[in-house]
């Protein structure tokens, strides 16, 4: 009997202490400089940017109540860009609230009764006060020089920092091993990540863009001279004339296609043929089989799963070239 009473009391105390942890708050400073009082363990998180925030939340298994979405073509249905390709999550199979393309449906956000809203400085700065009246709201910067800084912050705000630290340590280990294993192909080498803009005679340089460039910089690859002369290290990148194709030569060349419109790897070559006929002769990376085509959604999302995707693609290409 005494044991039973002890067990019941213990359980009661444990559940009370868990509840108090769940209701504990902390004050954090978001990327827009707002000081926000947030729950240490939020249970209903509204994510207002699918590629930057929802992906991270999925990667650390945080409780999402709703997300912004893209439109998948040609089906014209809401779609969790990045989440579908990286984690196989289809919006139709979830019970998430749909906040629209830029998380601008505030009525849906309110209806979802979140206890934390994660938006971006880019799209939600103007409506910060309105969102804050619904639930504590934090804004993240989409473009940071080190993408893991943003990831670490989000993980901290949703009470998953320990998991992030663990995953990040593993990632750093993988990077160190990779650098060591493929030093010949990586040491002192340069890379460019760029995509053709079909029909516009332009090539979009993506200098700091998602996990792909983060992984490549972490591997020790550097920017070629043209990028160093044109962009500051922290710049996201910009469109350049396709006439400059020869200036875009680098040891490694990465380009991506988007599955949002059902395109495949061949769309990259089609795009370059359109904006810069004869591009194959201008890029030594293409001639040396160091031109890598990736799925943009998988290569962009700031997740450790995507980091593995980029590393695997690079490793496969290196191994193929060694044969």
């Amino acid at each position, binding site marked *: 009997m005494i044991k039973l009473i002890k067990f019941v009391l213990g359980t009661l105390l444990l559940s009370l202490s868990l509840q108090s942890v769940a209701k504990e708050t902390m004050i954090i400073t978001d990327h827009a400089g707002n000081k926000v009082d947030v729950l240490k363990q939020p249970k209903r998180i509204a994510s207002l940017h699918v590629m930057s925030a929802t992906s991270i939340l999925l990667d650390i298994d945080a409780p999402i109540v709703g997300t912004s*979405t893209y*439109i998948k073509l040609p089906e014209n249905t809401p779609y969790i860009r990045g989440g579908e390709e990286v984690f196989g999550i289809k919006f139709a199979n979830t019970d998430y609230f*749909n*906040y*629209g*393309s*830029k998380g*601008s*449906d*505030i*009525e*849906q956000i*309110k*209806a979802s009764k979140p206890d934390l809203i994660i938006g*971006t*400085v*880019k*799209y939600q*700065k*103007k*409506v910060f*006060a*309105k969102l804050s*009246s619904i639930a504590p709201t934090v804004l993240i*910067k*989409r*473009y940071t020089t080190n993408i893991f800084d943003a990831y670490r912050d989000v993980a901290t705000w949703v009470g998953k920092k320990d998991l992030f630290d663990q995953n990040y340590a593993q990632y750093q280990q993988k990077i160190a091993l990779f650098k060591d294993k493929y030093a010949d192909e990586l040491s002192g080498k340069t890379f460019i990540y760029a995509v053709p803009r079909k029909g516009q005679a332009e090539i979009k340089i993506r200098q700091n863009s998602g996990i792909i460039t983060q992984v490549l910089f972490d591997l020790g690859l550097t920017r070629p001279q043209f990028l160093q002369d044109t962009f500051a290290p922290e710049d*996201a990148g910009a469109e350049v004339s396709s006439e400059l194709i020869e200036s875009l030569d680098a040891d490694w060349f990465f380009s991506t296609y988007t599955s949002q419109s059902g395109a495949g790897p061949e769309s990259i070559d089609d795009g370059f043929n359109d904006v810069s006929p004869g591009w194959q002769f201008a890029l030594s990376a293409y001639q040396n089989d160091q031109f890598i085509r990736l799925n943009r959604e998988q290569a962009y999302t700031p997740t450790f799963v995507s980091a593995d995707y980029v590393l695997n693609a690079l490793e496969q290409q290196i191994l193929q070239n060694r044969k």
Partner: protein
Amino acid sequence: MNIFDDQNMILAPLKGICLPLYKRTCWVLCALVVMLSLSFICSLKLGSVSVSWADVYAVISFDIALNDATSTIYELRLPRIMGAIAAGALMALSGYLLQTAARNALADPGVLGLSDGAALSVIVLYVMSSQISLTESIIASFFGVFVTAILVLWFVHKNLNGTFIVLVGIAVGAVVSAFSDMLLSSVTIEDMAFLMAFLSGSFLSLDLASASFLSIWMMAVIAVFLLLSRYINPLNFGYLHAMSLGVDAKKYYIFIIILAVFAMAPVIALVGSIGFIGLIATFLAKNIIGYRGTELGIVSMLLGAIMTLWADTLGRTLFAPIMIHAGVFIALIGALFFIIMTRYIVRQ
């Protein structure tokens, strides 16, 4: 205030408020007030979250025991609706006053470059300080509109021809807009997106305080407009006619331009650019009631309010959860309208 037969037009004396209401105008005003009221109620009901008519009634009757539905209506929809009505009315009045000053049916805050001037001023302030408060944006907006208006007036002061004013306005607007684009390309992607959202003509971020401010501002502008009303009719006849009727035309043209600036500046600061509304509303009003000074201004305001309200309501419901800015809807309809009007004026 008297009610006249349509056939017996009487010139109002140059004192007091001039609001000679004709029977036709009375009917039109009643119809527009009913339309605006119905639009207001429908807008409260429509949205991406469904609410009942009982919830709408509860909010209208100030019985706000806040449940999820009524708080959605009260906190999220009502500010947008109030803001849309006030902004539409103010922009329409501004357009009407500018048309009177320019004596050209194509004059409008957007066409004369004034909206671009306000936008540039807000962008400059943001680039200089990296952040911007509501008050600062309103002051910057006023400054931008005033400087642009002075610039346009300076270019045209020797030739107050209506077409010339519009052409100079378009040119000044293009130059100012180019400066804005250059400045936007010098800021970070995040800041650029913020500024573009700031100036996009959206009611998304309006809260009850901002919407109330716009509504009170609208009342104040209407009061000043009515005080100036006795000069509006003579000014509509043109400079010489107004002078011959005893109106110091030059002075009152400047007054109505200043009033037009006061009408539009806070709208640009709080909502962004919702161009063309002055053009469309005034054109429709002229076709409904004819050239009738003060009444034309009031009918234009009601039409502007109804159109802007529906642009916002459709924008937030038609493709929900995707939101289309009211400014986009109005620009789309306005551009088509502009082309049709130009053809119509050429035919006339």
